[in-house]
């Protein structure tokens, strides 16, 4: 026996070396055309470098050749999971530079569709994350709820994915008859369904084991790496553009900003660590409930608004603007809170009908920037968990 062990030890050692694994661009777990150059040492990731640009359509450059209104449909394609929010961010930028004030009813409709779109975007994120972790059913639940949001959008603007609903100075159409009731019914429907969703997956031990203490981002690093939105709040940083720098009518609404509380024995993630993948997941689930709260308030505000006389300025859904919209020279940075975090438009105008430069800052792009640092030393399966919990959407990365 001892001789056999001795002989085994004397045998030449098996030659090992690091292996380069090309993950994507058609890997189903990379949420689009993302390619990862993963250097692995066995099952451990030495480095995972994102290779992007497969969806680069030069949207920013196109913006320099079309006028301010014509660019709105392109913002749909920047992030097609939440087109309404993308529209909103761009409209805010141009309106700030052109000093356009938006009527109250248009603001109500904007916040309404933005929060509905936030819910449908989070449905995709949390469903797809569960699917990446091996649970197929939650994704179907998420898509089922998302369909209802799409129906609501179809009623108001006719489209189900790329809406082009917001315009500079307002929205394209007013709410059709019965639309507000439909939204109220949706809120009443989704609240218990989300509790059911929570029971189904959030407390699942296997799901928690896959996400807790994986891909930890400390609060300091999250700020330094420019993480935004739920990814930043998952690290425990209390920062929401809607709350801290209110735009539109968010300052009149009551809602909470959920943050990650990993490691807190009384919190939602007692086994984890602050800023892990599970924290980012839980923040999104909680945000759906907050959005539902906002929707309830907006529905009652819209009803109040409809009691006004028909020619009241607050009843307008569009500001009256010249046909040829010229924006005075200047530059500004405007940000809005999208489902994937802060989307910022840096708009530079030279006084003509077309922008001199439009720079779109998106949450997914900066999330991929720190991807290599976050995934160093993880297992290959955990890399998928980190991609899913960062909620990366590739058209937003490549623009």
């Amino acid at each position, binding site marked *: 026996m001892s001789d056999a062990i001795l002989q085994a030890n004397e045998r030449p050692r098996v030659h090992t070396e690091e292996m380069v694994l090309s993950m994507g661009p058609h890997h189903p777990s990379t949420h689009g055309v993302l390619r990862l150059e993963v250097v692995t040492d066995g099952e451990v990731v030495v480095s995972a470098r994102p290779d992007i640009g497969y969806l680069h359509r030069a949207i920013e450059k196109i913006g320099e050749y079309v006028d301010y209104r014509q660019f709105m449909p392109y913002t749909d394609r920047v992030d097609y999971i939440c087109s309404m929010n993308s529209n909103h961010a761009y409209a805010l930028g141009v309106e700030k*530079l052109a000093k356009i004030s938006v009527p109250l009813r248009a603001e109500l409709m904007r916040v309404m569709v933005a929060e509905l779109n936030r819910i449908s975007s989070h449905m995709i994120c949390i469903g797809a994350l569960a699917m990446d972790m091996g649970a197929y059913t939650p994704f179907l639940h998420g898509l089922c709820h998302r369909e209802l949001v799409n129906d609501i959008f179809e009623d108001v603007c006719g489209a189900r994915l790329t809406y082009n609903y917001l315009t500079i100075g307002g929205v394209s159409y007013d709410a059709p008859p019965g639309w507000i009731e439909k939204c109220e019914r949706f809120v009443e429907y989704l609240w218990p369904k989300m509790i059911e969703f929570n029971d189904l997956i959030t407390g699942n031990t296997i799901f928690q084991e896959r996400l807790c203490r994986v891909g930890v981002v400390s609060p300091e690093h999250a700020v330094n790496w420019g993480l935004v939105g739920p990814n930043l709040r998952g690290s425990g940083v209390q920062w929401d553009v809607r709350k801290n720098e209110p735009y539109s009518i968010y300052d009149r609404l009551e809602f909470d900003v959920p943050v990650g509380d990993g490691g807190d024995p009384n919190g939602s993630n007692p086994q984890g660590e602050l800023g892990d993948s599970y924290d980012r997941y839980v923040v999104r689930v909680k945000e759906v409930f907050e959005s539902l709260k906002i929707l309830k308030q907006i529905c009652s505000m819209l009803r109040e608004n409809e009691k006004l006389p028909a020619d009241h300025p607050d009843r307008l859904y569009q500001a009256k603007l010249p046909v040829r919209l010229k924006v005075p020279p200047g530059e500004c940075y405007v940000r809005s809170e999208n489902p994937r975090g802060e989307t910022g438009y840096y708009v530079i105008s030279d006084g003509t009908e077309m922008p001199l430069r439009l720079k779109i800052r998106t949450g997914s792009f900066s999330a991929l920037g720190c991807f290599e640092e976050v995934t160093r030393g993880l297992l290959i399966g955990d890399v998928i968990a980190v991609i899913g919990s960062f909620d990366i959407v590739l058209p937003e990365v490549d623009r």
Partner: protein
Amino acid sequence: MDFNAIVEHLKKRWPGIEAPAVANGDPFAIVPAVDAFEVLKHLKETPELGFDSLMSLVGADNGHELWVIYPLHSLKHLHKFTVKVVLGREKPQVTSVVSLWGMADFFEREAYDLYGIDFKGHPDLRRIMNPPDWEGWPGRKDFEIPPDYHGIPTLRNDQFFADAVETGNKAVAEKEKEAIAKAQEIFKQEQAAAKASGGEGIQA
């Protein structure tokens, strides 16, 4: 601190900083490229300024000169500041700020890719959106779109595309001709074989 107070604070050490009057939009300070890194480092590390968050990093071209714009924000003091660096079109260079804000990594690569701005000291300055062998700086105003990339036409109504369609059609037509000739040949051979064997031949 408001914008003017920050500019006054910075001017004590760097008199070259200008803050042009703006009638519209956000105010910004123009910082000489040689001082840019030190100014940004000062903005980040001085406790009363504390700009811990770089909101975006913009490369831009106004037709004459290139700009790099750093919109900054402080989560601690909740104030904002915008730094603009003006660069010439020939060999534009500015020191990288990746060591200050990790977020700048991808954003500087993007500005390099689209505008050809060289960020000195960047750990991995490669093209990010375009393929590695792409030529020219597509973000610039004077960029001319090449007719093709590895044989793939870049413009739909281009002559290149029309030629490609025409040659494609020609190739298809020639192939069809060849196939018809071949079929006719086989048909003749079969008829000849049938006659030789004494039959009446295949009815055409």
